[in-house]
């Protein structure tokens, strides 16, 4: 079958063609994934120029290292890992942390004991399906994400937005799985707090009075 529409050809097949020297196949792969890579970079770095640099580096590096792609992960996961490495370099440079990993700098303060309690507890006035069609919601989502520390934001983006496993997230960021888990919990709770303060129905607000008996 050679008369398939381009859109029906899988990434895996496109990669095989690109590895065999087909530039059009590589450009198709780029066109399929550039939006996603750019979006992830924008959400990680919050700065257009940096997001463009990361996107360009990602696809140039993918081109350079295409023969090394063996399909253990999906092509998109492979690309997003490359993008994450590039974004981490920029973050470290911004912080002047050239030799210190994100983990070494912050791990000792992270434990489940110190997870903050939910404060604003209320049902949302609308469902996510209704909310997603409203323009203002996207600004709210970005604002809430911007309030997270980098370490929490990166983990949430990879795990919950991009669908990486805990193991893949840990691998991409050079963190332990235990560290990813506790940061993911904090990230989810902080985002919940921020969104519920804006989207919660005050009439259903609950006050957490005290700890319940076991």
């Amino acid at each position, binding site marked *: 079958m050679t008369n398939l529409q381009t859109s029906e050809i899988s990434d895996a097949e496109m990669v095989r063609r690109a590895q065999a020297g087909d530039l059009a196949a590589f450009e198709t792969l780029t066109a399929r994934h550039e939006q996603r890579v*750019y979006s992830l970079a924008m959400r990680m770095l919050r700065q257009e120029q940096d997001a*463009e640099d990361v996107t360009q580096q990602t696809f140039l590096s993918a081109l350079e290292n295409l023969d090394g792609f063996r399909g253990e992960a999906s092509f998109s996961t492979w690309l997003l890992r490359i993008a994450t490495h590039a974004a981490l370099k920029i973050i470290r440079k911004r912080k002047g942390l050239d030799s210190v990993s994100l983990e070494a700098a912050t791990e000792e303060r992270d434990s489940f004991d110190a997870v903050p309690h*939910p404060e604003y*507890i209320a049902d*949302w006035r609308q469902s996510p*399906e209704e909310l997603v069609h409203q323009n203002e919601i996207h600004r709210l989502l970005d604002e809430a994400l911007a309030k997270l520390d980098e370490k929490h934001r990166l983990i949430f983006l990879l795990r919950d937005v991009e669908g990486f496993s805990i193991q893949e997230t840990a691998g991409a960021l050079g963190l332990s799985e235990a560290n990813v888990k506790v940061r993911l919990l904090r990230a989810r709770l902080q985002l919940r707090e921020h969104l519920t303060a804006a989207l919660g129905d005050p009439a259903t607000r609950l006050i957490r009075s005290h700890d319940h008996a076991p």
Partner: protein
Amino acid sequence: MKCEELLAMLNEYVDGTVDPAVCAEFEQHMAGCNPCQVVVDNIRKTITLYQAGRPYEIPVQFRERLHDALRKKWREKHPGK
């Protein structure tokens, strides 16, 4: 199970990776604790909303530059094609 213990297991519960015995305890606690129920529901909705969020549009001019750079690099890597 106390609210704090539930909080510590929240990821595993929401992601469906919690041990079945712990899951039963978790659900038993939630049945009698409205705030925990609402927090779990809020967290699920938070994740759903972010997953459904809109991607950033890639700037058109940047996209052109990107594809030019890729073609140039490709020709360097595959001379004569």
